[in-house]
């Protein structure tokens, strides 16, 4: 904890990842899976769930071992822990559904290099007790899933004319194939970032304006 700063409540800890520090829209971290697998809403949710699992597992273990890990070997230790949970989730997904496993392809294994996870271990879990670390990791994981879902649903709606596999527009709809290709990922991410930042910039300004009005 930073001296002089108040300890955040559990709710604040949870909401940090969902909104204030959203990994996709605010920190713009973990873009490799965010762009690569979000061609459909189902893929986005599966990737979000897998990443959340790895975040939770590594947060718990790093937090439990935080007083035991010397600074000098912390990165090596975190990487081993993260790689373990990525391998576990890889086996679990293959055991649950081969269809999802094949749709996500190599991107499950690539969770191991998602900078958001190592970032959480280094910046949060290594400094906080298990419950607090888990709360923060859950918020971050859900925030990441939400970001992926926002990308995946828009890309699926325009690229395939469906959402969660349910056709929306009938047979006459000509899919925008570009949405399923990498450039489409960038377009949609750009549009969401624009919307999100406009919203964030607008809220304090609106509050200020309201304040001026009430005082004036």
């Amino acid at each position, binding site marked *: 904890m930073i001296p002089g700063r108040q300890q955040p409540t559990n709710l604040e800890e949870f909401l940090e990842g969902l909104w204030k520090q959203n990994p996709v829209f605010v920190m713009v971290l973990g873009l490799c899976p965010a762009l690569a697998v979000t*061609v459909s809403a189902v893929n986005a949710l599966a990737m979000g769930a897998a990443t959340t699992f790895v975040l939770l597992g590594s947060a718990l*273990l790093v937090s439990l*071992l935080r007083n*035991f*890990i*010397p*600074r*000098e*070997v912390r990165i*090596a*230790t975190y990487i*081993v*822990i993260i*790689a*373990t949970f990525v*391998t*576990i989730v890889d*086996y*679990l997904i*293959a*055991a*649950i*559904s*081969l*269809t999802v496993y*094949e749709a996500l392809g190599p991107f499950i294994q690539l969770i191991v290099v998602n900078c958001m996870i190592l970032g959480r271990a280094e910046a949060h879990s290594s400094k906080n007790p298990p419950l607090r670390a888990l709360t923060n990791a859950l918020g971050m994981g859900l925030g990441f899933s939400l970001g992926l879902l926002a990308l995946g649903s828009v890309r699926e709606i325009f*690229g395939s004319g469906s959402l969660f596999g349910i056709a929306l527009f009938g047979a006459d709809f000509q*899919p925008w*194939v570009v949405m*399923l*290709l990498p450039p489409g990922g960038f377009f949609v991410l750009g549009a969401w970032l624009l919307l999100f930042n406009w919203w964030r910039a607008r809220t304090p300004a609106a509050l200020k304006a309201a304040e001026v009005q009430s005082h004036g």
Partner: protein
Amino acid sequence: MTALTQPAPPPATSSLAMIRTLGVVATVCGVLLVLTYQNTLEAIEANKRIALQRAVFKVIPGAATMQAYYVSPTGVVEANGAPPPGGLKFFAARDAAGQLKAVAAEAGAMGYADMVRVLYAYDPDRQVINGFGVVAHRETPGIGDKIITDRGFLDNFRALDARLNDAGTALVNAIKGVKHGARQHAWEIDAISGATVTSRAVAKGINDSAGKLLPLLRPHIEKLKEAP
């Protein structure tokens, strides 16, 4: 003059502590990994079996059971374990009465982006390829992936000529992909307009696979028909 107060340097970590930490963490992680591997292995194997069976039944409609075999110059063996030298894998599918419906095999060739892997069915009585399905591909969505859905393209595989010569050593006519609308013979595959590279990859994959598998399989077809 005021003395500068310097923070005390952090106590040095002993090498033993570092090695011990890494050792303990690696051991804990190792145990977790082995436990997960052992507990999911059965489910993963079962999933793979079901997925393969589904794929084979899709290219051979009416099939009720299937069995994987290896065929090599020395004969046909059930596919359990390592393939014999020069062995090729194929699947024999039977209907509910135990009659051989068709054999299926996997084929693959380089497409536009990566390997296009397909499964095809071969009817030994009519000597035609009469079933087709895509196993894996990374072709462009909306273009190359039409090989999965394009009606005209799938019509190529109603009775694609795969006759062997009299000696049974090779296909009489090599299976090849031709430009959209240029199909003239029963052994040609009419490409999808705009996805010629992917269509030709399918043709090349099937030609290479059938060219090797069918001559090996020919002497054993009668035996396969008898075996339950």
